[in-house]
């Protein structure tokens, strides 16, 4: 993800409906911040996304705002390790 793609989310808060913010939900789901059974992510900035955002800000030592501030978006678009931040299942793959 790039600033071009995610920069448009800066200052978004709960209740906003923003085209493409479902991609952010996918990001948080992939790295262990968003636990949802229904993976049909919508473009609504809902309670689930706010909760995931707060967990992300806490985990990465960012100022916890519950909002998509510039620092948080900058962190999200930084290249990173693919291992989940919350002990992922696939990292315990069995030997074949």
């Amino acid at each position, binding site marked *: 993800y790039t600033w071009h793609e995610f920069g448009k989310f800066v200052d978004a808060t709960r209740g906003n409906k923003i085209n493409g913010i479902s991609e952010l939900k996918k990001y948080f789901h992939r790295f262990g911040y968003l636990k949802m059974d229904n993976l049909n992510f919508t473009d609504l900035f809902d309670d689930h996304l706010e909760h995931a955002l707060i967990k992300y800000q806490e985990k990465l030592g960012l100022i916890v705002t519950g909002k998509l501030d510039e620092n948080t978006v900058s962190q999200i678009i930084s*290249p*990173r*390790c693919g291992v989940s931040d919350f002990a992922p299942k696939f990292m*315990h*793959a069995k030997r074949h």
Partner: protein
Amino acid sequence: YAFFSGRPRWSRSIPIILTYAFSPENVITSLSKSEIKGAFRRAFSHWASVIPVTFSESNDYGFADIKIGFYKGDHGDGEPFDGVLGVLAHAFSPETGRFHLDAAETWAVDFDREKSDEAIDLESVATHEIGHLLGLAHTSVQEAVMFPSLRPREKKVDLKMDDIKGIQALYGSNPNFNDQALSESDTSINNGV
């Protein structure tokens, strides 16, 4: 620092010797073999200097404890790589030993020579992923090697006290390790696990 759930570690008796090998098929050609091997040798040595674990390169990929390869896109483990930047690499918790790097990245061992704005330091990523192979999960300490992100052209290869305390909680200390050599700024300790 943090561990994977269940706190897995290599269960052999101390001192542990782990072999590592590079996939003969899943390679990159933008760096020479000796440059890649040098970066990994240095990355392993960072961890070997603080815990009683020795890493030895092997030519026998099939039987090596740690298997290293560069892969593009979907490579069969359910976690496809995503092209340039984004996800750089991933590695498995003990004792699986699989270490995968995204072949699409502009891997670098010398930023004076590699001028790309998207260049990623191979030794830094290798050092981080070896932490996973040994049993460390991601930390919240931004300065630590086990923090999950690394910016292009950033070099982060020196273990911080958070990394060292975490890995020594799993394996104990290397008898030759001297924590007095660490600077004051490296000595903050995160007690949360």
